[in-house]
């Protein structure tokens, strides 16, 4: 084993750092969950893209640098260490793009990815429905065959970014007669401004419209916007979901930066010894997550498929993130009650972690049944 990076990788890291140092806005952008902030974050995506940093691990022909997994991890460390803005393109870059790489056509990739990389088209996800939270097999929104495409109807919930985004992707029931409930689903991309789409922004706990409800009424989607074969949406989505929980949704760089911020806050507050254990645990946890991710990345590069172990990952980072931000609010004392600080924004964001991308209860079931081999049960 050897944890040192090659001189070439370190040179890449230095290049990223220098670019970020020169370009990261001195004043934090407004929250990306507001119209103003969304626009500012979209402009930042364009700036990233102009520098070639918006999707570093993609092939160059789609706007990336083809830089490999190690350098992607290094870039992410530098990105968050620099205090750079949150990525409004996250849904597209982390969820849709991997799906297109694995299951899309070359035409789809060429059409969708460069615009995504440039921040010209921002994507929302449209997974959930009101009655189907972590239970994707219960989806009811439907796709009906039409001339040259499909017509989507139904309701989607908790669609993150949808309040301000351009397009969305999600599963719709394309064959209601399929044998099992998780069959007969298609994976569709659609325009949020198409006729028949109603977007109702929904405020999260602090009132900011971090997601939306989508009402679709016979929304036409051409065949070119179906990913894979209709009926295979479940299988395609599962590979995306594994991805979502796996390597690319939460890079270690985020938590290393968060732990540094917490440590600095603790020092600013006079290093109160009563919080020393929690601050140390934040530093230790970020390091653990970094090393865990490196190990997973190297297994992946060695050809292993990352399966249910992504559930370990999901539970760890989501609970870590909340604990870290709770510690910060506690350190802030009365100031921690304020709703208009970066700490408050990050705290509220962290609270969603154990709920979305497969609730942690489900992840623990997966760990127990698939990694530990415990007997399946009815959960009740």
């Amino acid at each position: 084993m050897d944890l040192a990076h090659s001189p070439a990788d370190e040179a890449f890291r230095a290049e990223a750092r220098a670019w970020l140092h020169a370009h990261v806005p001195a004043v934090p952008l407004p929250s990306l969950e507001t119209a103003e902030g969304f626009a500012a974050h979209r402009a930042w995506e364009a700036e990233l893209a102009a520098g070639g940093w918006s999707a570093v691990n993609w092939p160059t022909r789609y706007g990336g640098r083809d830089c490999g997994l190690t350098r992607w991890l290094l870039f992410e460390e530098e990105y968050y260490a620099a205090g750079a803005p949150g990525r409004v393109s996250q849904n597209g870059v982390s969820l849709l793009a991997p799906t297109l790489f694995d299951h899309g056509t070359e035409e789809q990739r060429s059409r969708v990815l460069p615009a995504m990389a440039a921040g010209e088209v921002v994507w929302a996800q449209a997974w959930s429905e009101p009655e189907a939270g972590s239970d994707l097999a219960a989806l009811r929104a439907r796709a009906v065959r039409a001339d040259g495409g499909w017509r989507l109807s139904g309701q989607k919930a908790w669609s993150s970014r949808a309040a301000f985004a351009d397009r969305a992707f999600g599963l719709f029931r394309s064959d209601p007669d399929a044998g099992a409930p998780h069959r007969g689903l298609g994976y569709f991309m659609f325009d949020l401004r198409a006729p028949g789409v109603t977007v109702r922004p929904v405020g999260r706990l602090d009132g900011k419209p971090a997601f939306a409800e989508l009402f679709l009424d016979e929304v036409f989607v051409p065949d070119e916007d179906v990913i894979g074969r209709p009926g295979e949406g479940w299988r395609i989505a599962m590979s995306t979901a594994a991805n979502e929980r796996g390597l690319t949704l939460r890079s270690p760089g985020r938590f290393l930066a968060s732990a540094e911020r917490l440590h600095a806050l603790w020092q600013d507050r006079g290093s109160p010894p009563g919080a020393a254990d929690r601050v140390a645990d934040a530093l230790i946890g970020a390091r653990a997550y970094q090393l865990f991710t490196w190990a997973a990345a190297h297994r992946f590069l060695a050809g292993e498929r990352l399966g249910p172990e992504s559930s370990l990952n999901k539970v760890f980072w989501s609970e870590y993130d909340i604990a870290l931000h709770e510690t910060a609010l506690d350190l802030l004392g009365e100031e921690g009650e304020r709703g208009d600080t970066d700490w408050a924004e990050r705290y509220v964001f962290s609270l969603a972690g154990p709920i979305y991308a497969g609730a942690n209860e489900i992840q623990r079931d997966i760990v127990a049944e698939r990694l530990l081999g415990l007997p399946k049960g009815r959960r009740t």
Partner: protein
Amino acid sequence: MTWPQASGPMRFLLDAEQRAFAQSLDAMLGAAGTAAAVRDWSRGERGSGRALWSRIADAGVFALAVPEKYEGLGPRPVELAVAFVELGRHAVPGPLVETVAAAALLRDPGPAERFLAALASGRSTATVAREGSYALDGDAATLRLALAADGLRLAPGHGPVRPSLDPARRLTRLLPGGELLTPAPAVDRALLWARLATAAQALGVGLALLERTVAHVGRRVQFGAPIGSFQAVKHRLADVKIALEFARPLVLGAAVTMTAADVAAAKASAGEAAYASARAALQLHGAIGYTAEYDLSLWLTKARALRTAWGTPDECRAEVLRAHA
């Protein structure tokens, strides 16, 4: 085994009158439908909140913190704690605790004569800020009290309103200066009353979150069964129940003894239990619980704010250790 009756006067149950008082507040607040008033208050619209305030005052809640000779019914901390549990359960907005703290501060004959009757009757509302602290709802209170270095002052106004993590709480700084009401206010007493009231309010918030979550998990079906039948869900809610049921006697006991240690213990314990209830409530509601438009959010955000208001858990723990030395 046949235990004989208690042999002495130590009594640790609410009497019939106290229970009836809690039930009547509960009924009144339930009928009033507080959620709409909370949302109005969050937007700075005061009408519905003021109406609610009057009814709470009419029920005698603020009078419990005011001595009888100033047209109050108190001081009666046990009844006050009972009332604040109900105010928390119904997420009532406004500077409730601060009005109680003001009543505990204004005990010199001059200021008492001048202000207490109006506080007891609900005609005026008060906010209080320690030095360097925020005054809750300083834009809404009719009486703004500042604990300055040289004593208690009637602040001449307030600075800009800052949002709290709880949209129903509006944080302000009081402007310096203003009339000096008393050079030696009873800060310790005020802190005690404020902490007790906050602890009781937090307990009520935690109880409401648990009630709503129990109802939700009994209804919500996933994977073919109500999620309340899943053992992991049951155990998480059982732990919340345990935390709340052990915070409850601390709150009532502190109201009886009114010692600094008991009140601090009650605040730490109720604050943590209510926050644990909020975390469980959010997780078990899932995404719907994370939305501002769903009423659960009114209690979720309040649980976080009350955890630190008038003494963070660690400040309260330090007080317990100090008293124990």
